[in-house]
Structure formats: structure tokens, C-alpha cells
């Protein structure tokens, strides 16, 4: 259920990124509030991952994973806020996004200890992890070519794909007909 709430926020960030890629950075920055919109939302999502870590995790490895996502999202969001505000000048700050993707992807894969076809959530953890790791190429390319609409659209596409994957998550459900008896009764 928490995954779905985050999926909505991530979907909105993805839509903003698509819109910025289509309109161009110059037009996107014509309104002051808009240039802070998706970096700010990213930062807020990172902040909200802390209560998820505290209240919705049931093992140390889950806590480490959610804590590292919180750190990575807050860092990437804050760096982007600093860049759009003009407070941060170094283009090296753009590498916080690929870093956040790599940290997130690795955390997803490492903290899922069941194999791909154990249950739907296990499958999605592996899939989202690899999506982030391979998708890190998009923000990495964007760090080198920050004005490229194609790379920004690719970045947005990765974010939207992750949100769809999060919307597909269920408590206990089969994946392509597979559900390990160890996963428990199917529900939600």
C-alpha cells in the first residue's frame, strides 16, 4: 500500500520531467515555482521514506535499504534544488542522480533475498532494482549533456516505468503463474 502512495509521487515527478523535456528548460523555468517542483517533490519523497523505514520495515536489511533510498533521494533532490536555484555551480552535482539510481537499484536487489519467481513482490524487487541500475545510464548521460531533450525524456521514462512497477506490487500475489508455497496465502 505504501508502494502505491510512492508510485503516485514518482509518477508525478516523471510527468514533470516529460513536460520539461518537451517544453525545454527555458520555458519550464519561466515560472519560479515550477523549476523547484520536481526537485522539491523528490526531496519530500526522500523525507517520507524515513517514516516508511521506521514503521513499515520488519528486518535490519529492509531498514538499511529504505534508509539508503531516503538518503539517495534527498541528496539527489537537494542537489537539483541547489542547481536550479543557482546556489550550486559545479556540474559534478548532476552525478547525484546516477548515484541515487545505482544506490537504489543495488538496495532493491540486495534486500530482496528470495528468487525472481518466489512471488510478485520478489519479482518486482529484482525488476525495479535492475531497472534503476540500467536506467542510471539516462541521468548519467544527462549529466554530460544537461540540455538534451532525448536524455531527459529517457530519464522521465525510467521514472514512469518504476512508478508502473510499484503500482503492480501486491502483498502476496503470483507472478506469471508462479507463487511459492512459502510466500503464504495470496491476498491483496
Amino acid at each position, binding site marked *: *500500500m505504501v508502494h502505491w502512495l510512492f508510485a503516485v509521487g514518482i509518477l*508525478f515527478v516523471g510527468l514533470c520531467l516529460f513536460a520539461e523535456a518537451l517544453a525545454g528548460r527555458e520555458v519550464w523555468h*519561466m515560472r519560479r515555482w515550477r523549476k523547484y517542483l520536481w526537485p522539491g517533490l523528490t526531496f519530500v519523497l526522500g523525507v517520507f521514506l524515513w517514516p516508511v523505514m521506521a514503521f513499515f520495515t520488519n528486518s535490519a536489511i529492509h531498514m538499511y535499504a529504505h534508509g539508503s533510498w531516503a538518503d539517495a533521494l534527498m541528496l539527489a533532490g537537494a542537489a537539483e534544488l541547489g542547481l536550479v536555484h543557482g546556489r550550486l555551480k559545479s556540474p559534478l552535482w548532476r552525478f547525484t542522480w546516477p548515484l541515487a539510481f545505482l544506490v537504489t537499484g543495488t538496495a532493491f536487489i540486495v534486500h530482496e533475498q528470495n528468487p525472481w519467481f518466489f512471488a510478485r513482490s520478489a519479482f518486482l524487487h529484482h525488476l525495479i532494482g535492475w531497472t534503476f541500475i540500467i536506467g542510471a545510464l539516462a541521468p548519467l548521460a544527462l549529466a554530460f549533456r544537461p540540455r538534451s531533450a532525448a536524455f531527459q525524456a529517457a530519464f522521465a521514462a525510467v521514472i514512469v516505468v518504476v512508478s508502473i512497477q510499484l503500482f503492480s506490487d501486491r502483498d502476496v500475489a503470483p507472478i506469471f503463474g508462479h507463487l511459492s508455497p512459502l510466500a503464504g496465502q495470496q491476498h491483496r
Partner: protein
Amino acid sequence: MNTTFVTEAAQQHDIRAHAISLLGPLVSAAGLVWAILQPDRITLLHPRGQGFWWLAVEPPLYVVVAGIVFTLVVARPLLADLERHRATTG
């Protein structure tokens, strides 16, 4: 200025404007399709026995709302700015 270039730029601008205006409605439509395909996901339709969180979190409706909010809050002002930018830059 070469009129061919002006026409091409205007066409590209129109395509981008159309794409931006379609983003929100497409997302809302996707949420609506999801709601129709999986009505059990909307616990408000069968609220008996559901806890607070299952009633509060309605993913297909959230997708619909995300599309509507994006259209009203982001896409419309952005399209106005795109038009303004086009008018000032020619």
C-alpha cells in the same frame, strides 16, 4: 528568414504542445481503464470490513487524480508559457 524553417519550427512547437496537453489525460485514462479492469482495487465500492488504509489508498483513483492535477497545475500554465515564449521569440 526562410519560411520553410519557420514552418518547421512552428510544426515542432505544435507537436510538443499537443504532447504536453495529452500527458495528463492519458494518465487519467490509464487510471480509469485500471479501475474498470480491476474494480476490486477500489475498496470504496465494497467498504465493509476494510481498514482505514485500504479505504484511504485507492490506486486507480490516485492515477486519475494525478493526471487531473498535472493537467490543471502543470500542463495548462506550461502551455501558456510555451505560447508566450513562441510569441516573443517568433
